[in-house]
């Protein structure tokens, strides 16, 4: 294992430090997409596979580097007023849609203020802070807010605010518009064909507004439903890029040992996937804080990281992922300590009542992880019953609070106000959705802190608020945090600049090239 891990680490180092030659124009990228996306119209569907393919077709105003600092995309520059209420974006003036029509600020206003307000659940929550969106001229867009919203500069990413063509969608029924099957964007690649169940083909946008980009001629996205077959596709040279999560983790070491193979876990900083176990705060042993703390001490998370995740990712130290803004490690830490767990269980008088554990039905890695946790918990005397479900059944059980402990992972989208607060604020306690506060944690102080954190002005003020929130949460342990997930992207080493932003492959292959 150690040898395998060191090999993996050294190949990651290679991927990070290799001295690149000048980019080469031409060539084809063959990548895996899993599962097959339901649609490529990013304005209507924003799930992972849709964004991974359509992130090449559609764009937003900004991209973000690995420190989540904004970079230009459709907007070449921007200003934020000192009161935090006015955001002004200056757009590139030579942008065309893939059908040849000119792109303008009106498209941005239509997308953000009309189209996405109707179709995009996640963006809608941020747009409630917006008073107006206007286009004073063809290349300027102004967002005026009702009150300051701390994470606002972080919502201009392709999956959060994809810009859609006004000339195609205005006045139509968005969901049944025939153009949804032949998506038109401003991105570096154009849609060519989609053979369902087989592949999706994108071709270089020759009229892209940044000279010389993109480098690749075409991208084939291969639809291969079985994880073992995806690994074989890489081994036999049919595909060159396996996005994170494409293969089972136990295949990662074997694949990265292949010649000309690099691996990186970069490109997930923006969404910051953080895994945890929901702990039912409403009833059963998990309603007792001492039991929840005992669970934290009982879990050997370092072992899980090394044995199940090839050493990639990090043990979660806080409810905020370390790549998300305002993370702090100045909180209660839970190192592996079975004796401490036993003491806490004895103190609460745990009577051996069994707890039901729902693994995440996303493949073998998650199943094995649940087995490892079960073993950890049983070692300190907690009786665990595994409950098998498929994805739909899992969603339903979580939504209806029909569980004691359940694996999950959620995205943080770079800011606690976007992806953290939703799990802990009491106004989010409601049956019917598996992504709100389904553990039933209630703490008025936490509600107050997250409300303040969203609208506070200035990084320092926000840091102070979120530090206090993280300290309270790690003491209360509403859920059992596991790992900041490290999904490895495996690819041929001669594919360069594949992951250049915090959004990773979802940001498109604009800068990627194949070294001859």
């Amino acid at each position, binding site marked *: 294992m150690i040898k395998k891990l060191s090999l993996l680490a050294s190949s990651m180092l290679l991927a990070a430090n290799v001295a690149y030659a000048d980019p080469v124009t031409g060539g*084809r990228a*063959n990548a895996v997409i899993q*599962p*097959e996306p*339901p*649609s490529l119209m990013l304005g209507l*569907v*924003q*799930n*992972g596979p849709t964004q991974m393919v359509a992130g090449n077709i559609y764009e937003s105003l900004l991209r973000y580097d690995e420190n989540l600092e904004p970079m230009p995309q459709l907007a070449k520059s921007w200003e934020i007023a000192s009161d935090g209420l006015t955001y002004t974006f200056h757009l590139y003036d030579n942008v065309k849609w893939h059908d040849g029509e000119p792109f303008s600020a009106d498209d941005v206003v239509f997308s953000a203020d009309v189209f996405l307000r109707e179709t995009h*659940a*996640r963006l*809608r*929550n941020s747009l409630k802070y917006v008073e107006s969106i206007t286009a004073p001229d063809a290349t300027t867009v102004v967002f005026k807010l009702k009150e300051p919203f701390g994470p606002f500069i972080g919502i201009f990413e392709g999956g959060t605010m994809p810009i859609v063509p006004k000339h195609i969608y205005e006045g139509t029924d968005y*969901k049944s518009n025939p153009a*949804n*099957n032949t998506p038109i964007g401003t991105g570096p690649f154009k849609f060519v064909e989609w*053979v*369902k*169940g*087989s*592949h999706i*083909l994108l071709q270089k946008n020759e009229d892209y507004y940044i000279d010389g980009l993109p480098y690749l001629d*075409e991208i*084939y996205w*291969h*639809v*291969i*439903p*079985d994880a*073992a*077959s995806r690994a*074989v*596709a890489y*081994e*036999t040279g*049919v595909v060159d890029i396996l996005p994170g999560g494409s293969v089972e983790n136990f295949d990662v070491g074997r694949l990265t040992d292949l010649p000309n193979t690099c691996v990186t876990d970069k490109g997930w900083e923006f*969404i910051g996937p953080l895994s945890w176990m929901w702990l039912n705060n409403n009833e059963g042993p998990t309603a007792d804080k001492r039991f929840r703390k005992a669970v934290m001490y009982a879990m050997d998370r370092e072992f899980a990281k090394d044995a199940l995740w090839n050493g990639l990712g990090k043990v979660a130290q806080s409810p905020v992922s370390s790549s998300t803004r305002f993370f702090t490690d100045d909180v209660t830490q839970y190192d592996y300590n079975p004796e401490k767990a036993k003491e806490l269980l004895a103190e609460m008088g745990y009577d051996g009542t069994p707890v039901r554990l729902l693994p995440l039905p996303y493949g073998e890695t998650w199943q094995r992880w649940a087995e490892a946790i079960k073993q950890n918990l049983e070692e300190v005397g907690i009786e665990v019953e595994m409950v098998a*479900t*498929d*994805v*739909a*059944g899992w*969603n*339903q*059980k979580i*939504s209806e609070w029909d569980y004691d402990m359940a694996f999950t992972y*959620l*995205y943080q989208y770079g800011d606690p106000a976007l*992806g953290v607060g*939703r799990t802990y604020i009491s106004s989010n306690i*409601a049956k*019917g*959705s*598996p*992504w709100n506060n389904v553990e039933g944690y209630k703490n008025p102080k936490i509600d107050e802190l997250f409300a303040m954190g969203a609208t506070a002005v200035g990084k320092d003020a926000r840091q102070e608020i979120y530090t206090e929130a993280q300290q309270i949460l790690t003491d209360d342990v509403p859920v059992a945090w596991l790992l900041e997930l490290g999904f490895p992207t495996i690819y041929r080493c001669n594919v360069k600049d594949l992951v250049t932003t915090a959004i990773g492959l979802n940001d498109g292959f604009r800068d990627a090239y194949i070294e001859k």
Partner: protein
Amino acid sequence: MLRFIAMRLFKAAIILIAIVTLNFFLIHAAPGDPAAVMAGEAGAADEIFLQQLREQFGLDKPLLTQLGLYLSGILQLDLGFSYRQQMPVADLIWDRLPATLLLTFTAFVISLVLGTLAGVLASARVGKWSDTIISTVALLFYATPLYWIALMAVLLFSVQLNWLPGFGYETVGGNFTGFARLLDIAQHLVLPALTLGLFFMAVYMRMTRASMLEVSTMDFVKTAKAKGLKPGIIQRRHIFRNAMLPVVTLAGLQAGQLVGGAVLTETVFAWPGIGRLMFDALAQRDYNVLLGVFFVSAAMVLVFNLITDILYRVVDPRIRAS
């Protein structure tokens, strides 16, 4: 004969409606909400979004109303709309049908021809080493899980030997045309068709062998021998023809399942067929796609049962007389 066919078609229509209704309730009885699955893929959702999805696809209506709407759609040959794939179910099935039929029909022919031949051969040499070898190999094919054979075939012929492509329907991006494309598809077909065919080949072999041996002990065979007919003629004209009845039954059943696809084989070999469509739809609770595939599969089973019954009358004069 025409009256027989008309009666059977009428009964088949009633059975089909009953199957659709039963499937409808079974699928809706499974835990899970398609709106929640779709929203889950997006990584976040609020109640407004979930409600929008339910309204969009009529999932907010009472179950009986949904059934009524579905049945009235079926009567107009409208199989509904896929929630997830966002296109008509009939189009989805139609798109996948050629790949599925190519795979399942090839496997069907391979298994029927080779299985029957092996069965005849084994029965003619019963108790000898060739019978033992054929029977043992058939038992192995019969007992080994399909997905294991599939993965081993890929590892051996695709990864190690590099003789055949390991998955897919054709070379993506190969841009082959004409004969070159046919050859490319044929190469992709070899592993999945053989893998799928092996199980049924074993079944046909065992069925044929058992049936041949049973028939060979019957009085009319003794009579034929007593008349001094040559063994080859007895085998072909007397034993083989009578032994074929259970094989025809089995072939009819298998033929009825051709359209339903082969979930495991299509998944392992990334074959873009109906089996995979059904598998994905099940995971995503895409009710209309599931119901559509079940409907088409059930219709095909009924049609092939009818054809089997007609074939019985051709093969066995006793049934015709009754």
